[in-house]
């Protein structure tokens, strides 16, 4: 009997109970090499297996059969098979061999990219990600792949659904870096600048022993988004970020640091001139669009500052102070900002005056109370999490042994002092 035939029979026989599946897993691992050598003959076997019932076996054979390089036409055939498998497979079985599953999914990504149709990979990748994930707090290597596909397919909204989950458990730092970087880009695309800032912040401040390209690129975007969102940027990173990042990141992003400095002076003309002279550099980093948003945010920032000082101001004066060309342009800016809820104002077109109002929010509505309540709940949950985490760490063997070793040294000193006094 052909060993492959036998394997298929075993797969079919051993796919029902968990203990059988575990046995099958060992068998499959043993025959992995022989599967790989026979990779050309494997495709027909797949038709004999049911992806939902024999997920584990299907996975191994699929992995082996797609291992080699594929041409465009082959990819055309493989993509539907993988997609169908991801949709049908059982989560329990594939979690036994996550690395196989991940490699299959990564190949799917490569193939849809080869076919120049990233959108075909978005939905399957999302399903795959959910099936592989133990809990929503767990970051899988598929997260970054999924976000990359979303970015390429411009399905930002789909990407956001994953970004809404809070991630705490990470296996590989690289996954997190990419996840946060791509996530930041998606949020920028959706103009959720605060969220983007948080994600990019995670990259920049993550512990790292050497500087990496992802962090550098993230830092560039972080600076720009920070300017858009807060109108300022301080080059000093928080203390908890790694010393490598604190020391080196700035040096890789000189044009951006200067951009931030120029922004800080509050002079539009200067900023625009700077952007113009350095457009190539920003273009090269494909950040030019974001840089342009920075420039336009400066107009907004300046108008917002006016609301702090003035109750009424003519459009002409606004145009003058903010350095816009005409009152008409100023009106458009103000209108846009009122629409976006960034300022509270009314425009009187008759005499060309803008009347700035206070924030009408009185913190009295039911919605606001609900919002506050949900915030409190969220914080409480977070604080509970913090406590559990603290407990976990204080029970962690590695931590205790390390902390204990240091403690001893202090004890010795403590012990030393009274002795001296006795003499």
């Amino acid at each position: 009997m052909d060993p492959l035939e036998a394997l298929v029979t075993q797969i079919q026989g051993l796919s029902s109970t968990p203990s059988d599946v575990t046995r099958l897993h060992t068998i499959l691992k043993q025959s992995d090499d022989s599967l790989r050598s026979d990779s050309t003959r494997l495709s027909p076997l797949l038709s004999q297996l049911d992806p939902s019932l024999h997920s584990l076996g299907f996975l191994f054979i699929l992995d082996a059969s797609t291992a080699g390089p594929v041409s465009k036409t082959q990819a055309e055939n493989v993509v539907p098979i993988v997609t169908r498998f991801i949709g049908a497979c059982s989560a329990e079985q594939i979690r036994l061999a996550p690395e196989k599953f991940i490699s299959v999914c990564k190949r799917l990504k490569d193939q849809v990219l080869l076919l120049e149709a990233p959108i075909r990979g978005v939905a399957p990748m999302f399903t795959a990600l959910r099936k592989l994930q133990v809990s929503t707090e767990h970051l899988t290597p598929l997260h970054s792949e999924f976000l990359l596909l979303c970015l390429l397919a411009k399905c930002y909204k789909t990407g956001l659904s994953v970004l809404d989950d809070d991630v705490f458990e990470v296996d590989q730092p690289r996954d997190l870096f990419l996840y946060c970087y791509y996530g930041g880009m998606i949020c920028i695309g959706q103009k959720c600048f605060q969220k983007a800032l948080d994600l990019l912040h995670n990259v920049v401040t993550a512990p790292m022993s050497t500087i990496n390209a992802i962090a550098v690129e993230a830092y560039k975007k972080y600076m720009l988004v920070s300017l858009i969102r807060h109108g300022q940027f301080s080059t000093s990173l928080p203390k908890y970020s790694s010393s490598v990042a604190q020391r080196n990141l700035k040096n890789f992003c000189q044009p951006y640091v200067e951009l931030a400095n120029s922004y800080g002076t509050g002079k539009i003309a200067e900023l625009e001139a700077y952007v113009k002279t350095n457009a190539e550099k920003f273009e090269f980093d494909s950040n030019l669009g974001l840089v342009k948003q920075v420039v336009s945010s400066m107009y907004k920032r300046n108008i917002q500052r006016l609301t702090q000082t003035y109750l009424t101001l003519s459009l002409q004066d606004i145009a003058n102070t903010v350095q816009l060309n005409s009152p008409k342009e100023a009106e458009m800016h103000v209108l846009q900002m009122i629409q976006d809820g960034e300022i509270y104002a009314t425009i009187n077109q008759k005499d060309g005056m803008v009347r700035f109002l206070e924030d009408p929010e009185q913190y009295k509505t039911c919605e606001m109370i609900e919002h506050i309540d949900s915030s409190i709940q969220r914080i409480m949950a977070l604080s509970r999490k913090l406590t559990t985490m603290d407990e976990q760490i204080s029970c962690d063997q590695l931590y205790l042994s390390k902390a204990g070793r240091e403690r001893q040294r202090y004890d010795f000193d403590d012990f030393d002092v009274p002795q001296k006094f006795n003499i």
Partner: protein
Amino acid sequence: MDGDDETSGPMIDEIYANGDDGDKRSRRAIMSADHLDIEAYAGLYGGRTKIMRLLFIADKMNNPTTQLEALRMAYDEIKKGENTQLFREVVQKIDGRLGPAYAMDTAWCESVDRRAEQKKEKLDNELNAYRTNLIKESIRMGYNDFGDFYYAHGQLGEAFKSYVRTRDYCTTSKHIIHMCMSAILVSIEMGQFPHVTSYVSKAEQAPEALDPITVAKLRCAAGLANLEAKKYKLAARKFLETGPELGCHYNEVIASQDVATYGGLCALATFDRAELKSKVIDNSNFRNFLELVPEVRELINDFYSSHYASCLEYLGNLKANLLLDIHLHDHVETLYDHIRHKALIQYTHPFVSVDLNMMANAFKTTVAGLEKELEALITDNQIQARIDSHNKILYARHADQRNATFQRVLETGRGFDRDVRSMLLRSNLIKHEYNVRALRKL
């Protein structure tokens, strides 16, 4: 308030005219830059500072007659001393414009230099003799003489070194104070104000009680040092503490008039209303100084009684003169800005709404200019108000505590949320890294 000279006006006018009645008051002759009486000015000072001040004026003046006048007096003054280096500089600056009487006097220079050479040798010999005999007091005197010698010849660095060297041979606290005073004098001439501060504190630590004149001198020196360090408030305090005993005893550094001007301006720029009243206006000591410079006294009183227009006018008239002051010239702009800002803030403080036209009138400026100034102050959060640019009215703004609290609470919550999340994430990453390392070790 100054309401008694306009009794005919209705009450309401008087209130609106807050700070705007400067014109009605009798004008006093205010000296202006063109009329700066150099001779009188120079008469206030003695020693090296007189020359330096004259030269400084000559440098800053654009008016050639006054410039030459200053140079001429400097020339005469130098001739009395022994500083040939300075002499050559002045002659170069005069450049023959004052006729043959003020040309280069080579013979004088040479004779002075020769005598200096001889005197130096003599002092050197004397000092060496003292040193071999190890008589402390004589060595101190020797170094002191050297200091005086170098000072007279304009070698300030050497003079400072010599004076400081006497320190090791001081036996009484009187000697120490003498040493400190000499060091302070030279440091001020050199512009080394950090030295001044340290020697002032050293002198003040002397165990014996100091005589009032020395105390006053030390206060002045400390005031100058603080002024140069841009610590205007401290400088004001020091000048205000200066006792009237100062008189003209310290004219090699500072005149009583200067104490009034420096102290008055610094106080105006940095003190709040209560302090201004208690420490300046009601300060009987300082009043003696202020009497010497009526302009400063008047402008302080005007400021306190909210006659801003007249106060600012006095300031404007004084400005040209102050810019010619060797110590104050760098700080005039900053102090003036401070004073003006304080005036603006004080003016708006008691009102719920202020008519900008009135206010501009009171400050003798245009509404547009005033708006700009106010805008800067509001942005700086020094005035809590908003401008109604349509009706030209400034409305005080009362922060809604309740809303602000809500806002802050929500913001803090968001910040906490964010921080904790990223912290948990980081700690997990660190844990991961630690595990990787631990595995590698195994």
